[in-house]
């Protein structure tokens, strides 16, 4: 991994965020809502409306509004929420931290389950266990999140009644209660992700199993366990990293639904509320933060991949 490659990758990330800026601004600009009217209500006098428009710069040409908006956004200022009157950015970042907690928990659980499952399926290729896991994986991919979430909620709240079906408690307040609230959403997200990751792990393991170095390791007389853990798993995991990074993007989308269903005040739910109440600054901040998070995770995944895989030369 050369310095020039790293630099180019970073530039690409910045370009991505810039494009997202343009898109988010363009889309929200076209929203058929008059910000001044929303702020002051229906009965505002024309003078007051004009004053607010001048103050907010709504009379400026669009490109100037965009420049001002970007300048403020870069310094983390997305304006004040039209709904609550509070600054948007801190609120959205708090929401993001809750979502990241959910995402991190789900990813951890997913890897813990999907990696052994994928390897197991590959080792039993073509047998009942393999077919069964494939069918489960297929179902996982073919069910929309909201269906998986509702059905799991239906089943699990019956089986384990002490698990709260909805809500959120900060782990800083009460760690036990926080974990109990997170259990169902984390399980739901994992069920969806396991399908993706498992399929990838299975096909990668099949590839690696046929490689010369695995045969060499076996011929050396290494115990099967060592071959599987050190040679097969290590090498099969590498491409899985990329899939996991792609899944983070999917996760950010899927989390909107999951948070809505389990009533978790994360970034997805904040964005949904912003959209339904037409709260322009919140929509902009939420979309920007989500897309930027994704751009950063993608870049990180590429860098980690480059660090781990010395065979590929980036120049």
């Amino acid at each position: 991994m050369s310095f020039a490659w790293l630099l180019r990758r970073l530039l690409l990330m910045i370009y991505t965020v810039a494009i997202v800026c343009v898109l988010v601004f363009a889309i929200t600009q076209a929203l058929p809502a008059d910000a001044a009217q929303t702020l002051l209500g229906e009965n505002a006098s024309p003078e007051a409306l004009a004053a607010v428009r001048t103050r907010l710069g709504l009379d400026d040409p669009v490109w100037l509004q965009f420049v001002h908006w970007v300048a403020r956004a870069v310094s983390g200022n997305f304006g004040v929420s039209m709904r609550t009157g509070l600054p948007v950015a801190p609120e959205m970042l708090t929401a993001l931290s809750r979502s990241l907690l959910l995402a991190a928990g789900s990813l951890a659980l997913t890897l813990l389950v999907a990696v052994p499952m994928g390897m197991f399926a590959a080792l039993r290729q073509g047998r009942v266990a393999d077919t069964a896991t494939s069918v489960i994986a297929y179902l996982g991919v073919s069910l929309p999140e909201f269906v998986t979430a509702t059905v799991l909620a239906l089943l699990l709240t019956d089986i384990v009644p002490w698990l709260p079906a909805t809500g959120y408690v900060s782990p800083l307040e009460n760690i036990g209660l926080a974990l109990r609230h997170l259990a169902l959403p984390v399980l739901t997200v994992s069920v969806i992700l396991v399908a993706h990751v498992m399929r990838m792990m299975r096909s990668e393991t099949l590839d690696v199993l046929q490689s010369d170095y695995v045969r060499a390791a076996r011929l050396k007389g290494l115990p099967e366990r060592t071959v599987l853990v050190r040679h097969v798993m290590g090498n099969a995991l590498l491409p899985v990293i990329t899939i996991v990074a792609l899944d983070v993007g999917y996760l950010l989308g899927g989390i909107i639904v999951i948070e809505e269903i389990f009533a978790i005040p994360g970034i997805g739910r904040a964005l949904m509320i912003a959209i339904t109440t037409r709260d322009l600054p919140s929509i902009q901040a939420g979309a920007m933060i989500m897309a930027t998070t994704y751009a950063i995770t993608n870049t990180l995944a590429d860098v980690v991949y480059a660090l781990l895989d010395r065979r590929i030369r980036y120049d």
Partner: protein
Amino acid sequence: MTELLQRMIRKPQGVIGLTLLVALAILCLLGPWLAPYGPEKMDFLGRFRAPGWQNWLGADQFGRDVLSRLLSGARATVPMALAATLAGSAIGAVIGIGSAYLGGKSDEAIMRTNDAVMAIPGLLMALLLVSTLGNGAGNAVVAIALAFAPGMARVTRSVALAVRNQDYVKAAVARGEAAAHVIFREMLPNVMGPIIIEATIRVSFAVMLFATLSFLGLGAQPPASEWGLMVADARQYMHRAPWILIAPSAAIALSAIAFNLVGDALRDALNPRDDR
């Protein structure tokens, strides 16, 4: 065509997929006539009636027959997903082939921008677009189409790059044909295969995305018996009458599975070498 079909039904997955797809097509065409009751017909004595001989899949909170709603809802769900995928694929194909046709710096610029747009998660993109366009089934279709376009552009471009270097394309360029002629008459027909495979698999995502938008209240609006909307309505009664929830969920899942399986079977049938 018959040979392709024969190849597709060599594996059980292909048979299941095609069967489901044919069933789905029949539902979309004849659904309302097959339904035993009207989708809006209420029966206050039969509220939350469990599945049985009167209501095969049970009745909902207004005593409406779940099976009838499902059957009439098929055309509110599946054709929408198809339309969105078609439109998205068309836009993506034009961008992808155009980019490959232009080549060089323009190709690089278009593809980098395309990648950047792809970095916005699909559902987020669709939500943003719907928030601008307004709620409704038609707007949801437009939003899904636009959210799909960059992905399709990427797939198309990778195939189109190889086609761009073929002699017949070079000949057309040398003849001085207009860009539109080269793109639509020379290149497009030769990248159709991969586009169709990708699009078929994507219909399953479109079904899910459309149902999700409706579920969130941004797509189809009540009292439509769109499947995502039916799930949303059924949620509050899920402990009392789980069948109202399970029937539309299963319908969405089966449609998604159908397109997924058929897409996979198509890919296998067109690439005989890859047997995994």
